């Protein structure tokens, strides 16, 4: 299964350190087109300006949390289908459950790890393909 390495990725995190680390990691994995946003509102603005193929957002952010961003995205037609990877601080099942029901594609625990990140991205796309290949009734 081929993942388009040129795809547009939006990374949302209120920590500047995390944002730069994320961009670097993604670049090393072969994804050059990474846009950064420092909070939910900025993220929504950027989503209006351009089409993204993947959103990676931190769960804990001030004002608009990662899950709230997800919900807003799922409400709108244009952003409903965009794959969303939530980055969680520690295993809080309550919040992850909420995210799953709100339509998150997958989640990843901090800290950012090269191998884990690649595995999660691959899994997101693999699952989408599995869904497409289900025989039609």
């Amino acid at each position: 299964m081929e993942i388009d390495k040129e795809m547009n990725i939006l990374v949302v995190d209120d920590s500047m350190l995390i944002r730069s680390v994320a961009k670097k990691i993604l670049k090393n994995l072969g994804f050059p087109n990474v846009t950064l946003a420092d909070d939910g509102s900025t993220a929504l603005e950027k989503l209006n300006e351009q089409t993204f193929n993947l959103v990676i957002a931190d769960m804990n952010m001030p004002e608009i949390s990662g899950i709230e961003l997800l919900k807003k995205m799922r409400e709108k037609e244009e952003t409903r289908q965009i794959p969303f990877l939530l980055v969680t601080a520690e295993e809080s099942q309550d919040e992850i459950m909420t995210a799953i029901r709100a339509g998150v594609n997958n989640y990843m625990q901090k800290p950012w790890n090269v191998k884990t990140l690649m595995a999660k991205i691959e899994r997101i796309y693999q699952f989408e393909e599995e869904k497409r290949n289900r025989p039609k009734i």
Partner: protein
Amino acid sequence: MTDFFVDDPFPDEENKFDHIPIESRRLLARKYLDTSEKLLLSLVNPEDKVGLIERLDQIRQLAEDQDASLFLSEEEEAVQVIISELRKTELFHDQPEHELSVLATQLQEMFPPVGEPFFQPFEDKNGVYIIDGKTVICGMDCFTLRDSQLEEDEIPKCVAGDEIDRISVGLTAKSRIFYIKGDSFVDLISLLPSCAQSIIQCVMGELRETMDFLRKERVSTMEQLRLTRDMLENMGIGLLCINQAGEIGQFYNALVEDYLDRKSLAGVPFADMIFGKDRDALRNYYRALQMLFSGNLFDPEMIISMLPNEVTINERIIKLDYFFVQDRQGHVQSLFVRLEDLTSERFIAKKEEQEKRIIDAMHANIGGYFQMLEDIEAALGQAQSFFDRFSSGQAKGEEENVAGLMRSLHSAKGLCGQYELEQLKSEIHKTESFVQNVLNEEIDVDAFKQMLKSFKKEFQYAVSIKDSLGKEIIRILQGINYSQDEFDQLFNAVNAEEHDTVRLLVQEKTMVSAERIVDNWSKDISSLADNLEKKIDFQADIPDDLKINKNLAHRLNVEMGHLYRNSVDHGIEFPAERKKAGKHETGIISIKVWEESKILKLVIRDDGGGLDNSRIILAAKENPALDQQEVEKLISSQEIWKILFLKGFSSRKSVTQISGRGVGLDSVKETLDEIGGTIRMTSETGKGSTFSVNIPINTN
């Protein structure tokens, strides 16, 4: 009446049918007319109907006149063509003629565009198809599990709707396809009892075949599952299956009963067995399980990552892995759990780490290791013969022998410490206690016997580590510089297991002069003294032929430094004080080193003011880090100097610029404890203090 038709009876879209053979075009046209007629008649007003019918008759006449005979015969021909096609099929080949002709008129001949599927998605898939002479029955629930990568000449008798697409793409280039819609087919059953019966039989046959196939598949799948389960059991891995409610299924292996400590697990809730009363864990678990089985929208792999990977049951560490089985639509059918006991794996990992440390220590001083083995063997022998005499009633009262045995044991214990042989050290310690108690009380002979056994076992372990090196010993020894001759000598000695010789040959290379103990001391003492504005000289009395292990020399060089620093700091007085006391302005710190009966002796002396007991006691009492009971004990036993060596004594009081970070005499004691050494301090007020250190060593 409005003119609905143009003169040309054929519709404007004629060019759409260019690729259709001419004889069938007419058939189509006729059908089109019939259908249009019905439609038109239903639309027009009754008073317009008659005129319309007349007009249509005219058109029909026109169509027929144009090529009447040809038309009719072509239509008949078309039917005949279809009948002959039907006869080619297994299903219809011996059906009555009249039934076939009715069937033929009902069948639609299809002319799909070349290379494309011959119907629209989601439409009209149910029905009977006759493709190039073979009959294909297609229905929603009839399916075949055969590979759908079909060869061109291989068409199954019964297919699922989506497989029709695949077949049709390959066939439409050159195939004739007749099709009867599913609904019409149902009507036909009454009209064509014989044909219908064949078709039904065919379908039933297919179903039967399919059911058999499925049954066999299931049997073989269950068989595989059973094999997997048993194989896992042999590997020490438990396997069980849980359903949506979290209950354990029938299918599990015996190891699971062992791990969960319970028999008859079918129907038992799995979570309750592993989480016990932990409500949060239970809640999370059941919630994840519910989501897992709730449909095919969420990624099961993601949900499974929320389930616990490790639990502790009955003090065993069990690893949990999860596998799910889903149907073709992505609905999870069941969840398998793999259980693996990690306890011994972790235990082994710890043991391996310890073994590595032992080997590293051995590498650092292999000659010493050999010597240690000899010494412990001797001590073990002594203990054994002591036990023999004891159990036969002879030993009591032989205090001298006990003292000798105790010394051997103590010394052996110290050596163990150097090589990280913790268990052996503890066995020796137990033996020491035992032997000590022998003089005081009755000892259980059996217990003594057992203990000696454990002692022996640990000793053999220490030997086995050495043996396990095998040829590796040569490699370690090669790390030391040998000439060819020296090396040959060594190699032969190792092979012949002549431990003495090996030890000698190795120690020659790993031993250094004992003078190395005082490397740099003189300079250090000078500079420390200058900082404090004291005048201090340093003297060393060490025989130049005394050799000790390089590492030990280094260690002592570092650790014994605390002793002279103590003297510089607290021992030697300031020049003015000394003068007043009638002493030489320059104080002396001296060290004498020698070896006696395999004990390395160091005596470090200063001619300072000696210990001020009252100051020591005061400092001790004020120091919250000290165990005051200990302090009291030492005061009452007149061993005030020992207070200096108590853990925590120096950590607050003597943090001076000179003594540094508060590391002091207690650290010296710790170091010596590790290597089996001892330290004593004596002091004479006004005259000076003396440290006497004993360390068991290997000698050459």
